[in-house]
């Protein structure tokens, strides 16, 4: 029996996950709505004072995106575990880490990308200056894959447990502190007219490291969580 080439397997995996997500488009909209509503709550809670909102806008958008992604993370492997296709993936001849990397990519496209698309709107709701928005988008483009990758490792670890929602938050939030610090640092620096390249470079370096290591760690974690 001949195995399909790696590229074919990868694209098949990606296409399958994207198709599944597209068939349930409503689920994609949920994190977006959640992020918009949370952003809307801040002016109510803090008062609609322009200068205050402007100062916290970058951080609020980042944290809101992070929380919205956290809500969607749980579902990353859930349906595949239910119907047993994840076990098939573990048994498949293709390297598990690469296949999981494709799944993480698909998950990032379906949850993080819509959030990045509406991030300018969220930033505008909080009066973030227009000149800072490109930096915010760049920071989000680097920080969200990092969170998806880190989150995937932890979701894989909790794959064998019953109630994992709050536990996932407890495990993920401490680990993503550096990503939040650097992303918020870049936005704050841009807002004050300071050079913002250094924190963005740090984010990029962390992302490169995570792209290489996280799929491997995810595969190892999944093997631990599934052998019962």
């Amino acid at each position, binding site marked *: 029996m001949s195995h399909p080439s790696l590229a074919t397997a990868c694209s098949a995996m990606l296409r399958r996950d994207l198709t599944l997500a597209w068939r349930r488009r409503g689920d994609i909209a949920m994190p977006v709505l959640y992020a918009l509503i949370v952003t809307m709550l801040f002016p109510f809670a803090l008062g609609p004072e322009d200068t205050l909102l402007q100062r916290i806008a970058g951080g609020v958008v980042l944290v809101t995106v992070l929380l919205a992604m956290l809500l969607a993370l749980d579902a990353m492997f859930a349906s595949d575990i239910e119907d047993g296709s994840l076990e098939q993936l573990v048994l498949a001849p293709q390297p598990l880490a690469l296949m999981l990397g494709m799944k993480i990519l698909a998950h990032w496209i379906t949850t993080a990308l819509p959030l990045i698309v509406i991030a300018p709107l969220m930033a505008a709701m909080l009066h973030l200056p227009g000149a800072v928005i490109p930096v915010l988008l760049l920071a989000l483009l680097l920080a969200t894959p990092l969170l998806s990758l880190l989150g995937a*490792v*932890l979701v894989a*670890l*909790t794959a*064998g*447990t*019953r*109630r*994992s929602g709050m*536990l996932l938050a*407890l*495990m993920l*939030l*401490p*680990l993503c*502190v550096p990503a939040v610090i650097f992303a918020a640092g870049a936005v704050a620096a841009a807002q004050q007219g300071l050079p913002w390249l250094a924190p963005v470079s740090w984010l990029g370096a962390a992302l490169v490291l995570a792209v290489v290591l996280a799929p491997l*760690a995810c595969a*190892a*974690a999944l093997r*631990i*969580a599934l*052998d*019962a």
Partner: protein
Amino acid sequence: MSNWIPLWLHKLGSPPTFYRFAGALQPWAMTLALLLGAVALYGGLVLAPADYQQGDAYRIIFIHVPSAWMSMFIYAVMGVAGFIALVWRIKLAEVVAMESAPIGAAFTFITLVTGSLWGKPMWGTWWTWDARLTSELVLLFLFLGVIGLYHAFEDRRQGARAAAFLAIIGIINVPIVHFSVNWWNTLHQGSTVNVFGQSKMSWDMLWPLLTMTLATKFYYAASLFRRVRTDLLALEGGKDWVRRIAEDEVDR
């Protein structure tokens, strides 16, 4: 000739041998911990002179600093034991890693509480978002995450392996805690005690601190031995050696 050390270590890894070994050492470790702790407290609270700047308020250092060292030390032990558990699948290493977590979390919590008690008179605030304080808080959350993940699984060995994996991922935070005062120049002071070279502290204050460090190490050992023994009995329940212990207890 010289291979009795690996052989002995190998034997120590088996639950019944470790159960007896820990049972023999545990009272000694606890006695030493209490004794050294009492001496250190007397030396620190009574014998050591007051600080020329901070007065008597500095004396909380004798609790704060040893706890902080222990929080990092125990995390490192947990990470190494977790690594051994994952690579060689040694049951004892899993138990040691998982039973270290609550002790480490307690030491981290003590560090944070005593630090904020100390911060109030010295810095004028209970809490500040300083690099070392924040990274120590993250350390506490990592400990809690490991404990939470361990208990989320129905199968304890599987839970221990998953939590050990999380502990290894989180170990990256330990050097960040340790070097945070050198990397970021914020409110928390730099290190006063140096293992290599001159410490920036008079000997009258240093010896109670070092004694307390030893006391906390022994306390950790005693507490860990006791917890591991209980856990081993629960894990190995139904095996012959546990049944024999249970029968002995019935006779007594």
